[in-house]
């Protein structure tokens, strides 16, 4: 919403400066988006008239002018070809700063003649003119008039953002009322003088749906003469960005901005019979003032005559029934349209008009007929003519409900001490009626004005008083501190994520945050992309689906880095994967991706592979407290992982993490070059930490007897998993065997085809006595037999 300072001052008598007004608006809740003061930089310039212009004695292209200025007659040198006797133009005195050329004028001779100032072009003043030469102003202007005034640039324009709850601020009068209440001056809005009707209106009005349109008032004015608006009205509209059209239309626009009261004016000669406010019917359509044809529907409120739809009520009028230069008889409309329906129709049709904007937020229900009277007066003043009696259908909607209010609520809710008398005074200034609830009660009954339909209860009244008193009156207290014991402030999953994030980063991965969206094709390549996961109104076609995993986005990002020449990207994200649209379907993951470049190092280093990922994964899992020793490794992985080069770590049947290479087919689908390594941890699949026993740890078991180790090599089928050998060995003697680690895998000439040798080191921890050779033999035999039984292997000779 834009208005000019002079417009505001028609409603508000104040000595406050523009800066003070803007500051008070801000602190009262009127958010100032910008102030445009085009005249501010023109302060030094005034209107002057050239008395005579003669050729410069020493220069062909210069003239020496005698100029009548506010400082008297001065000699000024000028190079503009249009400088001539009698021209009224802009004058800059010595000392003035010329914004367009960035210089400050000094009394310097120009080719031997001293110039006592400068005559200015539009470009030199940074004005939006395309003419060459110095300004050519209205010859009627008085010499010495400030240039800003002469160019009508002396009226700053204020642009404010109006929140949806305050449609009354969509009129300058409403803004003035709040500023006056905030102590900035007095409201001086001129009273509206009703125009007596001279004859009964030949056009009748009816309401067929009083929910959509509770009240419709109008009057007929005959014998008007339409045409261009007077200069003041045109200027006022132009200043706030509206194009003047004709007096009749400009009047409705003016009142819309002045009072937040939309109106409509029909060319009465185009109307057939009565005017009806009703719901639209299937198949109806009309051509609107914006030139478009709109189909109407039974959910929309239309204005129709006996034959056809004229327009959408409170939104836009029809082209055919609109006013033109030839219009002589008009019918003026001031109605009240339901805000919800107006809003919905605006959305359905896509029409954003000043009227729609206001009705959708709710206009002043007490100003329907007053607005009509105000408009009538202006039409008669500016277009002549004779007005009929007012016709009204329906009735004014009931005012907002009274609120019983304890003035102490201001202190209790806003923390500001305001005396009850002051509370009532503030509310009164804002247009509320207040009365005592009863003799023994300290509560008051507050009746909101008809333009404040946002007021529902005491909290709204607290806000009114607090914002007028000023939020800066709220005291600043000591901030609270947590006292005593508190439960850990974040959930287990969140805490684990924080640790996992730092563990992963410490392994050399850069944390990224990528969109929760992904292209549907990418989602489908990674096990998602179902109908349910589509965004109905995506911001771009490639952000149309919720990602089933962070993998595709991370891999694509890694590839993007590689394409920029930064390969070997190691990225991770601690973020969500979306399996369905429920809360449980949003998985907390730590996902890492690595497009490993072949290492080049002066000491040979192997190409990173699945086992590098597995090591990183296990480090992170251990950091976040996963029971790593109890996890089972399986080669069953979702289809976007590479079969045979990816594994899942499971707890029971639940996958806790997946690691390895991504399937080349999935990579191809998202445009990423193979191979790609990754892991994905499902943080919430981990068991909750034990609740019993608190944080205390069991005593340390430090045995005096030294551990010893024995190596075994088994020949097994190629398909036998190493983990099965290790697990069988560990289980052979739970009391004595402390650890089993696999240290060699051999396939080759000395091995039968389809067989391999797996070598393990078994660590024995004696507990009560030193082991004898016989003891060691016995446990070794158990290991061999357990492994042979579990894997069908044999001890390698």
């Amino acid at each position: 919403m834009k208005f000019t300072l002079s417009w505001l001052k028609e409603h508000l008598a104040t000595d406050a400066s523009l800066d003070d007004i803007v500051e008070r608006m801000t602190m009262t809740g009127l958010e100032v988006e910008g102030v445009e003061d085009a005249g501010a930089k023109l302060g030094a310039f005034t209107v002057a008239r050239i008395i005579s212009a003669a050729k410069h004695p020493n220069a062909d292209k210069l003239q020496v002018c005698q100029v009548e200025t506010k400082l008297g007659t001065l000699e000024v040198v000028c190079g503009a070809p249009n400088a001539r006797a009698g021209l009224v133009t802009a004058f800059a005195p010595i000392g003035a700063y010329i914004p367009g050329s960035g210089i400050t004028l000094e009394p310097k001779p120009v080719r031997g003649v001293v110039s006592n100032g400068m005559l200015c072009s539009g470009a030199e003043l940074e004005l939006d003119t395309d003419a060459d030469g110095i300004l050519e102003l209205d010859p009627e202007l008085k010499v010495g008039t400030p240039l800003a005034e002469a160019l009508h640039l002396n009226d700053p324009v204020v642009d404010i953002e109006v929140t949806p709850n305050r449609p009354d601020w969509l009129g300058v009068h409403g803004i003035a009322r709040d500023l006056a209440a905030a102590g900035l001056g007095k409201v001086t809005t001129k009273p509206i003088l009703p125009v007596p009707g001279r004859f009964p209106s030949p056009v009748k009005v009816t309401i067929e749906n009083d929910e959509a349109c509770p009240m419709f008032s109008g009057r007929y004015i005959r014998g008007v003469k339409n045409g261009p608006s007077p200069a003041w009205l045109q200027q006022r509209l132009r200043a706030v960005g509206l194009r003047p059209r004709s007096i009749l239309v400009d009047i409705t626009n003016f009142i819309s901005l002045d009072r937040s009261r939309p109106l409509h004016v029909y060319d009465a000669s185009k109307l057939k019979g009565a005017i009806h406010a009703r719901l639209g019917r299937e198949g109806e359509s009309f051509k609107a003032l914006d030139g478009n044809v709109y189909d109407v529907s039974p959910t929309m409120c239309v204005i129709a005559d006996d034959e056809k739809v004229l327009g959408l009520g409170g939104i836009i009028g029809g082209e055919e029934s609109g006013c033109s230069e030839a219009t002589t008889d008009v019918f003026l409309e001031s109605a009240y349209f339901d805000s919800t329906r107006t809003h919905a129709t605006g959305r359905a049709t896509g029409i954003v008009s000043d009227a729609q904007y206001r009705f959708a937020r709710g206009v002043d229900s007490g100003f329907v007929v007053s607005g009509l009277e105000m408009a009538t007066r202006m039409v008669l003043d500016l277009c002549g003519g004779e007005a009929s009696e007012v016709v009204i259908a329906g009735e004014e909607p009931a005012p907002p409900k009274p609120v019983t209010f304890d003035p102490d609520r201001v202190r209790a809710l806003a923390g500001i001490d305001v005396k009850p008398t002051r509370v009532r005074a503030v509310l009164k200034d804002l247009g509320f009626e207040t009365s005592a609830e009863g003799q023994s009660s300290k509560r008051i009954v507050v009746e909101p004005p008809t333009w404040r339909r946002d007021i529902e209860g005491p909290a709204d009244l607290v806000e009114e008083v607090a914002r007028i008193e000023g939020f800066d009156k709220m005291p600043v207290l000591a901030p609270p501190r947590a006292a005593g014991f508190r439960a850990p402030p974040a959930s287990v999953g969140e805490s684990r994520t924080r640790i996992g994030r730092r563990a992963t980063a410490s392994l050399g991965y850069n944390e990224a945050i990528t969109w929760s969206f992904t292209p549907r094709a990418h989602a489908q390549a990674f096990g998602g992309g179902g109908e349910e996961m589509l965004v109905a109104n995506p911001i771009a076609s490639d952000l149309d689906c919720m990602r089933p995993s962070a993998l595709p986005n991370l891999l694509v990002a890694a590839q993007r880095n590689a394409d920029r020449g930064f390969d070997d990207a190691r990225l991770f994200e601690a973020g969500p994967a979306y399996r369905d649209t429920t809360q449980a379907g949003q998985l907390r993951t730590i996902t890492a991706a690595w497009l490993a470049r072949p290492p080049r190092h002066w000491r040979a280093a192997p190409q990173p592979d699945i086992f590098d990922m597995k090591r990183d994964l296990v480090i992170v899992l251990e950091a976040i407290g996963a029971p790593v020793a109890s996890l089972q490794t399986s080669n069953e992985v979702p289809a976007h992982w590479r079969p045979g080069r990816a594994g899942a770590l499971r707890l029971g049947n639940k996958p806790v993490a997946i690691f390895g290479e991504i399937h080349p087919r999935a990579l191809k689908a998202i445009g990423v070059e193979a191979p790609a390594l990754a892991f994905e941890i499902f943080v919430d699949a981990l068991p909750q930490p034990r609740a019993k026993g608190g944080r205390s740890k069991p005593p340390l078991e430090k045995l005096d007897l030294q551990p010893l180790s024995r190596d075994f090599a088994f020949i097994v089928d190629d398909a036998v998993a190493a983990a099965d050998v290790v697990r069988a060995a560990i289980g052979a003697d739970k009391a004595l065997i402390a650890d089993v680690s696999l240290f060699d895998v051999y396939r080759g000439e000395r091995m039968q085809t389809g067989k391999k040798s797996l070598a393990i080191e078994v660590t024995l921890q004696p507990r009560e006595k030193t082991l004898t050779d016989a003891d060691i033999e016995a446990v070794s035999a158990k290991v061999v037999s357990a492994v042979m039984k579990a894997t069908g292997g044999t001890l390698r000779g």
Partner: protein
Amino acid sequence: MTANTDLETIERDLLARVGAANDEATLEALRVEALGKQGSISALMKNLGSMSPEERKEFGPKLNGLKDRVTEAIVVKKATLAEAALDAQLKAEAVDVTLPPVKPRSGTIHPVSQVMEELAQIFGEMGFSVEEGPDIETDFNNFTALNFPPKHPARETHDTFFMDAKDERGERKVLRTHTSPVQVRTMLKQKPPIRMICMGRTFRKDSDATHTPMFHQIEGLVIDETSTMADLKSVLIAAIKAYFEVDDVKLRFRPHHFPFTEPSAEVDVGCDRSGGQIKIGAGDDWLEILGSGMVHPNVLANCGIDPEKYQGYAFGMGIDRLAMLKYGMNDLRAFFDADTRWLKHYGFSPYLLPGLAQGVG
């Protein structure tokens, strides 16, 4: 049989050869030659037995002195040679220490994560717990419960993303446009007093240098019987000072309108824009950083809390914006671009944990 001069000659000769020995083998051979069982000095010692007591009395001590001095010289020389041998070995095994190690892996924490932990720390100190909620929300939790009536113009200001999927009320699910639905979830499951923050992803259909379709918010909620807007103001001032690590931050509370709070305030922080970059805690300019207010009675009632008995406040801030202001990034879009150059430049060492030691909290 042997004169004193002979002993002196022997000693001079042996000591000279010890001095001349330049490896341990030569020295050992010399030791055997002189002091071994068949050695020259050992032979002289054996001779003592065949001497007269007078001779022995004179010759014995001299011979022992000779033996001690040669032994000592060999020990000293041996130690010297061992040192020299070690030095030589170390010299031979020297490497070019300027050769590079395997490239160090230096990972980083995203600034948004870092700021989230800073905020959790700051509000944790003030007794706030951390709550969570899903990104895909019901229309009720995101709007209706928060006093956005169906079809109200206020909903339009949110540029909502809708899912094709519907919720149990038959309404299309939305991507949460703010973290406020977590307020609703918390109030529905927990009785007052409530004192919580939540942080997470939020979504709006908007994209330019300062808006991305996904961003992050922090939300705070306090519900009890007495908290006022002055408490809200006090908590926010303390939090903003702690976050920006400056003591003289100016905050300006401006009346505003949000459907879910009444009264509502937007909060501006004092800043300086003169250098082309925004500096918090200096200058005469203002920058809007958060929205806040007293929880609307309708919201309390919608969440099963008696608005006659309980009251409280709520606030919300953009986390990405806070990160930009504190750490100097100027393009929001880069936050989500996963460009490793950006991540390494603006990211944080994983060892830099927000807390008192790092200056935040």
